[in-house]
């Protein structure tokens, strides 16, 4: 019978006593009440934008079934994105958003602005509280900050269960205030981008100056407000199936123009003469109808949703999302994912402006409000860990194919690809503990 060595006995005894009396009892217990979900995602477009996003979310359930959710999101974005100008058979030169320095686009390529480097921090909190008679009340807030953007919002929601909790009706409202402070200021909409003839000392690739003021700037910042209303009904159909129907209305007022986006002004031969800053309306009303259902088969679950969105900018869109979770032995699962999205162009979308015609009231060549079809193909694999933690991996392929919404491409532009499709890969790891 060998007794443990002296130092070992003492330290073993200390450890054992800590476990029993818990020198950090209260803290340990508090942490036990929290459930944490974390995720790390990388998004990468071929030759364009790359983004990384990390989320940590904590959920704590209190004795009376109140739930507190806190979430911290960090993301970083780098790379180049289309500035709105069309490709040309010659090299094009653009002024950087800061107004200082220039960058160029090669002949026959979609002009990309490579100044985008952004990081965002977002904090979200939500408190959910059951009230009497089947009512549940929830209130939350959100704060997000980028170097050129700030958003602040609050929401509240009330839900009531009927019919043995088989039917839930809910209504909610959210208010948001967003402020944009673009690099170089807010450019005067629809005015030409001033491109200095000076061969400046700034190099094409390098960082541009944060303090620069774009000569086209009319203000340093602008803002918008959003009011969202949401009404929903959730219905249990049977032991295996439930359905949710939502209607949401959104009213946005204020600055919705993208200060970094421009339009090419083309002559009748399709040659670009100048570039003008885009301009969007300062009000937008959106209606969205959302239907989701889940069905539990013996060893699999199907999750299907459809959304129809329409707004007074003339954008109509259809989204279909399908996930099919196949349960494997030992609580492992694989989940293929399919998503289709189709949108019509905004009324004021146009891929370029024509020289010699009157300027429209609003114009944007941002492909994101143009006509497009997209699809996503993905697969997720999830597995439990030894002591209850969960690990999951997800890989998705995203394809975006902008379409010509009926614009003829004059002269040399006929040869150019102005609706370039985007391919992206999304990879994600999630861990819950």
């Amino acid at each position, binding site marked *: 019978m060998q007794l443990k060595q002296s130092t070992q006995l003492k330290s073993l005894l200390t450890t054992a006593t800590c476990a029993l009396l818990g020198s950090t009892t209260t803290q340990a217990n508090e942490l036990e009440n929290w459930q944490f979900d974390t995720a790390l995602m990388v998004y990468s477009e071929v030759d364009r934008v790359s983004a990384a996003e990390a989320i940590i979310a904590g959920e704590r359930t209190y*004795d*009376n*079934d109140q739930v507190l959710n806190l979430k911290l999101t960090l993301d970083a974005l780098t790379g180049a994105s289309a500035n709105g100008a069309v490709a040309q058979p010659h090299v094009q030169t653009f002024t950087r958003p800061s107004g200082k320095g220039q960058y160029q686009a090669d002949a026959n390529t979609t002009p990309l602005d490579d100044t985008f480097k952004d990081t965002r921090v977002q904090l979200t909190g939500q408190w959910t509280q059951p009230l009497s008679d089947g009512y549940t009340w929830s209130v939350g807030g959100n704060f997000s900050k980028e170097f050129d953007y700030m958003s602040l919002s609050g929401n509240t929601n009330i839900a009531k269960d009927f019919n*043995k*909790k088989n039917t839930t009706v809910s209504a909610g409202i959210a208010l948001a205030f967003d402020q944009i402070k673009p690099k170089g200021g807010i450019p005067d909409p629809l005015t030409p981008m001033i491109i200095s003839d000076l061969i400046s000392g700034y190099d094409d690739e390098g960082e541009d100056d944060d303090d620069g003021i774009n000569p086209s700037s009319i203000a340093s910042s602008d803002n918008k407000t959003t009011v969202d209303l949401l009404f929903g009904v959730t219905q249990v159909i049977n032991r295996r199936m439930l359905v949710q129907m939502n209607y949401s209305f959104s009213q946005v007022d204020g600055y919705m123009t993208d200060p970094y986006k421009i339009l090419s002004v083309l002559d009748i031969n399709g040659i670009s003469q100048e570039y003008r800053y885009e301009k969007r309306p300062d009000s937008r009303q959106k209606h969205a109808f959302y239907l989701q259902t889940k069905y539990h088969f013996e060893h699999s679950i199907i999750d299907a949703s459809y959304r129809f969105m329409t707004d007074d900018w003339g954008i109509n869109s259809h989204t279909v999302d399908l996930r099919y979770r196949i349960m494997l032995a030992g609580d492992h699962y694989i989940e293929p994912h399919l998503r289709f999205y189709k949108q019509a162009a905004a009324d004021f979308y146009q891929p370029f402006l024509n020289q010699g015609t009157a300027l429209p009231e609003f114009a944007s060549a941002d492909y994101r409000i143009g006509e497009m079809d997209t699809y996503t193909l993905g697969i997720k694999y999830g597995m439990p860990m030894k002591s209850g933690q969960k690990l999951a991996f997800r890989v998705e392929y995203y394809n975006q194919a902008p379409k010509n919404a009926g614009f003829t491409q004059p002269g040399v532009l006929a040869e150019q690809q102005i609706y370039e499709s985007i391919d992206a890969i999304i990879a994600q790891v999630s861990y819950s503990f």
Partner: protein
Amino acid sequence: MVYLRALFITMLLLTTTFSMANSLDQLEKKLADLKGQVVYLDFWASWCGPCRKSFPWMNEIQAKYKDQGFTVVSINVDHDKTLADKFLQEMPANFSVIYDPKGKIAQQFKLKGMPSSYLIDRDGEIVSAHVGFIEKKKAIYEQAIKQLIQQ
């Protein structure tokens, strides 16, 4: 042939009624055996979160008031008994469990939610019930039991 078929149907009817009544019979027998005792009848399932929280407490009150003529009887309503057994491996019960996979007892009691608990006095009458298990109400639940025991 006709005779055989009739026999077959009778057999079928007998077996189905027997298996359907099974869990109810078990409960009836259990409650008859416990006549004269205060019974805390609890409906639970492996998938029900608050049920998990109630188990340590039910073990505790069972131990505490056992000597004074008090028993906890639980009804498991899992469709699949193996899930209930898995739950019991993690969350052992020091009280008896009646399996009601078809929800026959649950139906009889017209449960309003899960878990549901009933207090039955020494005469076998249900005197109170509550739905859900809320940590903060433990003292209230216990008070009701204590009162009934002392009656």
